């Protein structure tokens, strides 16, 4: 597949993510910050995010695996993930974090 076709495919893929609400306006802001002086900005941010998110998600899973879940610890991780998602425009992930925080709040009160 040639470069032009690949670029088009990527563009369409990103566009569909916007349409599905996977990405929001913040991602456009990030794209706008990329220019000739910083040609890999988007890629760098996404890479940072994925590494960070993976680490946090592992922590969240670990925490949820315990018999006695430490909800405040969990909340701190979810808060971090929500913050990063929001900063890069990962809309659905941000919303998922908000839901998780709410659920975690409720279980906390029950416990």
């Amino acid at each position, binding site marked *: 597949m040639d470069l032009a076709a690949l670029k088009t495919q990527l563009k369409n893929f990103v566009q569909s993510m916007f349409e599905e609400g996977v990405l929001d306006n913040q991602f456009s802001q990030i794209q706008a910050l990329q220019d000739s002086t*910083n040609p890999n900005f988007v890629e760098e*941010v996404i890479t940072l*995010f994925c590494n960070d998110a993976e680490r946090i998600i592992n922590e969240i899973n670990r925490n949820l695996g315990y018999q006695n879940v430490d909800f405040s610890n969990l909340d701190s991780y979810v808060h971090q993930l*929500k913050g990063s998602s*929001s900063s890069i425009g990962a809309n659905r992930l941000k919303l998922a974090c908000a839901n998780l925080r709410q659920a975690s709040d409720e279980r906390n009160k029950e416990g």
Partner: protein
Amino acid sequence: MGMAIDRDDTQFHVLAVDDSLIDRKLIERLLKTSSFQVTAVDSGSKALEFLGLNNNDADDDEEYEQRDSNTESVSSDEDQDHQDLGLGVNLIITDYCMPGMTGYDLLKKIKKSSSFKDIPVVIMSSENIPSRINRCLEDGAEEFFLKPVQLSDVNKLRPHLMKGRSKDIDSSHKTTSTRLISSGN
């Protein structure tokens, strides 16, 4: 001549404080895009370290008087020396939620310091809590930005920096006249 401003007059130096790597990268890019010089650190204590303020000192002034080896003129040189130690920071922008020292704690420490209390401080937070916002503003923060921070927010910083810059010029003029008087003896 301790009063020469050795940094480019047109470039402002912003100290950004945020424990999130992604947010640090973002704010750094936003600030650089707006032609600011940026130093980014990941905690309040690192920020204080960078400014030359010891975290644990209750009284920052005493520490500087001990450190200051220039015995010629005590009061007039102090302000400029403190500026040099802080490596010419013109504005501090900090996240609110950080482990250890929060952005609010950092704000209080800076406002308590005689050498740095005039540096404008801006607080950022992902949470829109009016009581939090009001408390920060009442206790000396110039602005409060909701995250994610945008270029339009960064553009709001310039007026605060221009205000600070003209204050610098005023105080350095005062320093000149004080010196002239004392050297005339």
